[in-house]
């Protein structure tokens, strides 16, 4: 049974790390701009073993060293942060650029909005002349404490560009915050509130699954021309360890990633749940021997095979596992492309089910009349894909999320967070339908 540490989804060797799909090397981009070519291939690049907090620290250090306007701030950030993501940065880059704030999240995010707004470009010049504003990297100590700043994020950050007709923006703002459950966090250190942000047009929301992903996605978020809320799954800070390229690179926002390809069922997830899905898929082929679970799996797969009679299928179903990575705006076309093969969909996350990301995706797949087909041949016809995805479904969509309780209660956490066996049950249910 794979654990997070031994997960096959993590890049345990340098070669695997450097072959990360869609990785964009900063120096290669420079080369392209200059028409030169130095290190654009994978040769000559270094990787180092890092856990997630080290990878995040590495990204912050690159952001600070490549951009003079960048500042990093938040509660307890100067001594390294309660999760060690900013360790040593204050010493390295000085207290003017890496600093503690008073204990006020609305203050932290509001400050970031103001600083970022000073980087708005008006025509060719920066707002306010040669001001130093621009890249504000704020930390909210736990996502559970983002609510005092919700007003700043929704009523200021998300609307900044829109309400000024594109004249001003706070694209330089990134708000980092630890998220999800760890096993003992209780009501105020376990929340997964990304669902609340789904309607926040103008903001982006990103949740990485690993050190390599965290570094590339964080650098992307920092450089993206839109404000980004970057949620870091707490449990992965130490437990997920990967070979991470040491140089400057980004991974694209708005793009999901297929982690394992398959043709019988699409599983969409993100963050910590990625590993639980991997474990559940493992259980599908390796159920605990001699247990009722083994029989349950055998029976369900028998039903699945019978339902596929006449079709040329392998004896075990193959699962397409997708990591969403960017939650807002998320990669619906990729999900639809996958569904055109599998015709079955399971979505898994920790956050509450009602109003959550899973229900949003399920709704988007089903509401095919919401989009007009494109006549532009170079564009993907998402409208048609939506209708076909819905009409092609061979089973109802299943969403496995947290329950609709107001938070994750300490004593009940093991039965709140969708774990591998609950996900296994979902796999079987959707496959055998």
């Amino acid at each position, binding site marked *: 049974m794979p654990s997070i540490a031994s997960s096959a989804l993590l890049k345990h060797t340098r070669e695997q790390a450097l072959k990360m799909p869609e990785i964009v090397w900063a120096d290669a981009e420079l080369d392209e701009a200059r028409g030169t070519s130095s290190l654009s291939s994978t040769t000559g690049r270094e990787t180092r073993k890092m856990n997630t907090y080290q990878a995040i620290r590495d990204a912050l250090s690159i952001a600070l060293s490549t951009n003079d306007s960048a500042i990093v701030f938040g*509660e*307890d950030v*100067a*001594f*390294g942060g*309660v999760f060690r993501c900013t360790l040593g940065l204050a010493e390295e880059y000085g207290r003017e650029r890496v600093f*503690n704030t*008073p*204990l*006020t*999240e*609305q*203050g932290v995010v509001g400050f970031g909005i103001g600083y970022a707004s000073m980087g708005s470009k008006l025509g060719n010049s920066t707002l306010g002349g040669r001001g130093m504003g621009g890249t504000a990297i704020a930390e909210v100590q736990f996502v559970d*404490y983002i609510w*005092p700043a919700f007003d700043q994020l929704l009523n200021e950050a998300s609307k900044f560009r829109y309400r000024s007709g594109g004249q001003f923006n706070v694209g330089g703002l990134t708000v980092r915050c630890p998220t999800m459950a760890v*096993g*003992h966090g209780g009501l105020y250190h376990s929340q997964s509130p990304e669902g609340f942000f789904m309607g926040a047009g103008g903001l982006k929301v990103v949740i990485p699954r690993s050190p390599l992903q965290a570094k590339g996605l964080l650098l992307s978020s920092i450089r993206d021309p839109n404000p980004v809320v970057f949620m870091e799954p707490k449990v992965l800070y130490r437990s997920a360890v990967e070979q991470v390229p040491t140089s400057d690179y980004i991974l694209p926002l708005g793009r999901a990633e297929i982690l394992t390809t398959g043709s019988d069922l699409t599983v969409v997830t993100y963050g910590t749940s990625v590993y639980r899905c991997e474990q559940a898929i493992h259980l599908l082929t390796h159920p*605990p021997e001699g*247990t*009722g*679970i083994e029989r*349950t799996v055998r029976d369900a797969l028998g039903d699945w095979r019978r339902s596929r009679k006449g079709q040329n299928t392998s004896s075990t179903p193959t699962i397409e596992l997708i990591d969403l990575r960017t939650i807002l705006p998320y990669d619906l076309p990729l999900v639809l492309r996958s569904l055109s093969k599998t015709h079955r969909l399971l979505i898994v996350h920790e956050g509450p*089910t*009602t109003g959550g990301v899973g229900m949003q995706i399920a709704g988007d797949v089903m509401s095919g009349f919401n989009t007009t087909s494109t006549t532009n041949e170079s564009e993907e016809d998402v409208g048609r894909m939506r209708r076909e995805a819905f009409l092609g479904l061979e089973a109802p969509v299943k969403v496995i999320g947290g*329950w*609709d*309780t*107001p938070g994750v*209660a*300490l*004593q*009940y956490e*093991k*039965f*709140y967070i969708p*774990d591998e*066996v*609950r996900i296994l*049950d979902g796999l079987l249910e959707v496959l055998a339908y």
Partner: protein
Amino acid sequence: MLRRASSTLRPLINRISSLSTRSLGRLPNTQSPIVSKPHFFNSVTGDSNELIPAFRLIDGTGVPLDGAGLPELDEAFARKLYENMQLLPNLDNILYNVQRQGKISFYMTAQPPLPMTMSRPQGKTNACPGVAYALRRSPERSNSVAACFFGEGAASEGDFHAGLLLASTIPSPVVFIARNNGFAISTPSSEQYHGDGIASRGPGYGIDTIRVDGNDVLAVLAAVREARTRCVEQGRAVLVECMSYRVGHHSTSDDSFAYRARSEVEDRKRIDNPLARFRLFMETRGWWDAQAEEELKTRHRADVLKAFKRAETQSRWELGELFTDIYAGEEPWNIKEQRKELGRLLKKYGEDWEPWRRELQKYKNEGRDLIKE
């Protein structure tokens, strides 16, 4: 500029200025005296070099300061105060170790043992005025006040400012009690605020305020008694800022020597120990001695261990409680559906899936209440 106005405007201006010379004196929304020299200020004491004084009654050896008016206090009450104060370091020591052994997931240290409960950092400061307003409206509780405890870090939240503002503007009897222990996790109070502590904010909201030596239990007692009296009499909030120093780590997740020198903490402990101070005071009165101290420590230790053992062996409530107390009244369909879904899963996997089987044993009924449904 009036004098340079064009001649067509002159008659109008003359009229306005003759009116205003008569009525000008006070400004419309304030009774501020008028001065003709610019006066910037940055102090609530009137003198910008002077800090808000701190109220103290006994010195480091428990001896009352000259002219100190001690609060009324008999032996029984003094002993009770001291015993409660002593309980906190005992709790800290035992539970800290218990957490280290993995028996509990997290513990937040209570030191220094001010005569006040632990503050739950954020949020409550906002709700207190409403609590107090309700008390004011309850005839049988018109003598009661709400007490709101918080740290100097929590006082940076917008909630705090909103709470103070409402408690004075919509007169509500709240005693706000700040424990200024110099740290919010790693952040020293020097990075938490630039003004004169938390106390300086009280007058900004029109609130009677006092700063107290928080390591002097008698000063805290006297100040809070007086605060309570004012609160009841005026029906408005009062703010008490207790100055102290956090000698412990913030919590079991924190190692404070990552951001402050061990020697700083040791020095502080040596210079001023609120327990020793009060104990010396009691000893000079013949209310306490070494034997009483020994007995108390033994008793506290036994009490804490006993309470812990009891808590440890208690099984959890039924697992079905996971879905209760979400709403009052009719339970919505989604909660019903989710409870059933968990029951179905438990029935199917509860015996065979080892992590669940082990976890289920911790609940009363071992999850059968959900399976049955």
